């Protein structure tokens, strides 16, 4: 591990305690804004290209419509008592000190407007309840601070009434989109997906070429022709994985891990070029319609290919959509094999494969790594795995510990349902928010530094494409290398020994005897 360069210019300050509460610093992040979408990004999503002339009227009407069609939004606007239990729970507040990044203060940006137009007290005594008119300044403030929320729901766990800031933040983004103020990063990506089937805008030809390259790599490594099938009619399993798995590190190594597990389990699987994306940014912008359209592609692909099962790869929010929403948005899946969960997570698949003795594992292959595990927020708080409650925490740990010898947990209040967001979730994984991303990663990085100091932890594993990209970018700011973040299935890939695979010893012998 490199020396911690805590005084690097513009770098984060060292926080000894991952939960340390900063002093309030008003306006600290008010100028951190993400790029706004161009008309070409907004229009394919069904939103106006630019700010509407009567935006105020439209926004207020939309606010009312959302409250009338979403119980959570309505109840959460009404029930907050400002007790303050959430105020120290947001990683962006902990990392920036900006009070508007405290969950309740973030909610209040919108609640104040709701009160002004939709409640008795706010209509007649606005000063009393902090109600305010929806002005251009307020709209801009929404844009700024609702794009400093990664919708990770750590605050919702803390709230005595279960108020979920993610719901408020999603609603705010939908209102912004409805009046023509979209975020470039999310809207451009959704538009791309609608055109090509994935967030990258990768066409089927390019995807096929990529997969073929990876097959070659796998054969070179193992001596076995392991397939990464694309658009195979009649395959048993359709793999839906984030497109980052096709090009980014360490994501690719995770994909190779799934391929090895599928190979070892002897199942017939395929990727679809039409639904070559697990990510669903429709969730980030709070748009039911867009989220449904993106999800629907998975149903279409599954029907078209005639598969029996759907398995999701390592992707955090995609798994929230997959586990919690897919059946709602694109179900019922009566045409799939009902003996398996629909959809199933690759972690559930691998865990079952381990239980069934289908995987030959040499843990020592990962001995160079001392691991810890980062619970990705959407998996931890918005989904589940396996048959037992808490499976989303236990299964990844079980798989990790089955494939590596050195494993340590981070601080109790930073894992499982109390996990911190990586700092790049919820549609904020864009370079124009790098400052926010670095600061927001501070609590997690501090927790990792602790176990590095205490147990010599070198690497962190995650099962989310956003977490992996985010950490590979921000880890160097905290004294780690960019490859200190790993896919869980990367470690699986390292440790699995396939039938007929040349082991290193055999390879060495083979070289010696020409």
């Amino acid at each position: 591990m490199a020396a911690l360069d805590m005084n690097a210019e513009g770098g984060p300050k060292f926080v000894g305690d991952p939960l340390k509460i900063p002093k309030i610093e008003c306006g600290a992040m008010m100028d951190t804004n993400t790029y706004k979408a161009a008309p070409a990004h907004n229009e394919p999503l069904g939103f106006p290209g630019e700010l509407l002339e009567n935006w105020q009227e439209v926004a207020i009407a939309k606010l009312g419509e959302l409250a009338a069609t979403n119980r959570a939004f309505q109840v959460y606007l009404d029930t907050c008592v400002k007790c303050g239990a959430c105020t120290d729970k947001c990683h962006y507040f902990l990392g920036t000190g900006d009070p508007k990044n405290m969950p309740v203060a973030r909610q209040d940006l919108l609640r104040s407007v709701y009160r002004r137009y939709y409640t008795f007290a706010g209509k007649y005594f606005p000063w009393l309840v902090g109600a305010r008119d929806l002005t251009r300044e307020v709209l801009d403030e929404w844009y700024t601070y609702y794009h400093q929320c990664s919708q990770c729901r750590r605050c919702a766990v803390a709230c005595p009434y279960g108020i979920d800031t993610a719901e408020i933040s999603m609603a705010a983004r939908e209102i912004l989109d409805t009046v023509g103020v979209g975020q470039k990063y999310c809207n451009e990506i959704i538009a791309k997906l609608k055109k090509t089937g994935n967030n990258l805008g990768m066409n089927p030809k390019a995807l096929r070429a990529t997969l073929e390259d990876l097959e070659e790599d796998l054969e070179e490594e193992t001596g076995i022709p392991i397939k990464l099938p694309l658009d195979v009619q009649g395959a048993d399993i359709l793999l839906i994985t984030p497109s980052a798995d096709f090009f980014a590190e360490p994501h690719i190594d995770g994909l190779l891990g799934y391929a090895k597990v599928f190979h070892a389990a002897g199942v017939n699987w395929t990727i679809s070029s039409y639904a070559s994306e697990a990510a669903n940014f429709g969730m980030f912008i709070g748009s039911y319609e867009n989220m449904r359209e993106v999800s629907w592609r998975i149903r279409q692909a599954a029907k078209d290919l005639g598969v029996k099962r759907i398995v999701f790869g390592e992707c955090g929010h995609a798994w929230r959509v997959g586990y919690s929403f897919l059946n709602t948005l694109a179900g019922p899946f009566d045409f799939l094999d009902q003996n398996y969960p629909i959809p199933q997570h690759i972690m559930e698949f691998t865990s079952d494969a381990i239980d069934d003795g289908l995987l030959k594992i040499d843990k020592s292959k990962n001995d160079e790594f001392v691991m810890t595990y980062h619970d990705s927020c959407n998996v931890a708080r918005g989904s589940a795995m396996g048959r037992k409650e808490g499976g989303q925490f236990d299964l990844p740990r079980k798989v990790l510990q089955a494939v590596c010898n050195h494993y340590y947990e981070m601080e109790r209040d930073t894992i499982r349902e109390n996990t911190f967001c990586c700092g790049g979730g919820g549609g904020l994984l864009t370079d124009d928010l790098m400052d926010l991303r670095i600061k927001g990663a501070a609590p997690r990085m501090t927790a990792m530094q602790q176990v590095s100091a205490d147990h010599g932890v070198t690497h962190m594993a995650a099962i989310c494409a956003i977490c992996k990209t985010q950490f590979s970018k921000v880890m160097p700011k905290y004294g780690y290398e960019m490859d200190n973040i790993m896919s869980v299935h990367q470690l699986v890939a390292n440790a699995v020994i396939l039938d007929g695979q040349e082991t290193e010893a055999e390879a060495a012998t083979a070289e010696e005897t020409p």
Partner: protein
Amino acid sequence: MISTVFAVLFYLATILLVVGVGMKVMKYARTPVPLKIVVSPAPRTKRGVVLRMFREVIFFESLFKSNKWIWIFAYLFHWGMLIVLLRHLRYFTEPVWWWVELMQPLGKLMAFVMLAGLLGLWARRIFQERIRYISNPSDHLMLALLVGIAGTGTLMTYVTRTDVIMVKSYMLGLLRFDIRELPLDPILLSHLGLVVILMIIFPISKLIHAPGLFFAPSRTQVDNAREKRHISKWARNLPPLPEGIPKKKEG
């Protein structure tokens, strides 16, 4: 005269409270829930959800896990208030129920517990900078109102006793729409006046958190989205999307 004014106020406040809370609850119950948004730790069964809500209501479980200081003060206040309220049943029942009679000493003591909790919460609102930042005037006034009610009540219990027999006769009268005389004791009248205000603002203020708690999908949903399809009415009526993959040339 004053007795009549208070009688009218009580009837009005009761109607506003019951109708107001009823309307809010109906609104919450009728508003659709588009998605499964249950938050961890999420029970997989209905029984689990009932247990979870039981722990929330009885122990304030989430608050306990998230902030011990707020939990202590909120717990003292709410339980103190509940027992004080139950003690007040003696002014509305004749003969007084045995368990109300039994809890009388405890009920009198709990006034201090309730006050301690309220003052603790208020102190945090004033001195803890994060909570001060999120507080509106109404948040302070709400505490002032509750402290006022508890304070005047405690005064009457321990310092300047009021004519309890007369108060009880008045209250029993109210229940039969028979307006009797109320002692013209300023502390008693303040106590009752503040209670009337509390009843009136209950449905239109943050006090609605009490019934609202039971309508938070993040806590009340069963985590079974894969096993049981959840779909809201308006979502069911969305225009259908095509089943197969539309044929087009691939580039």
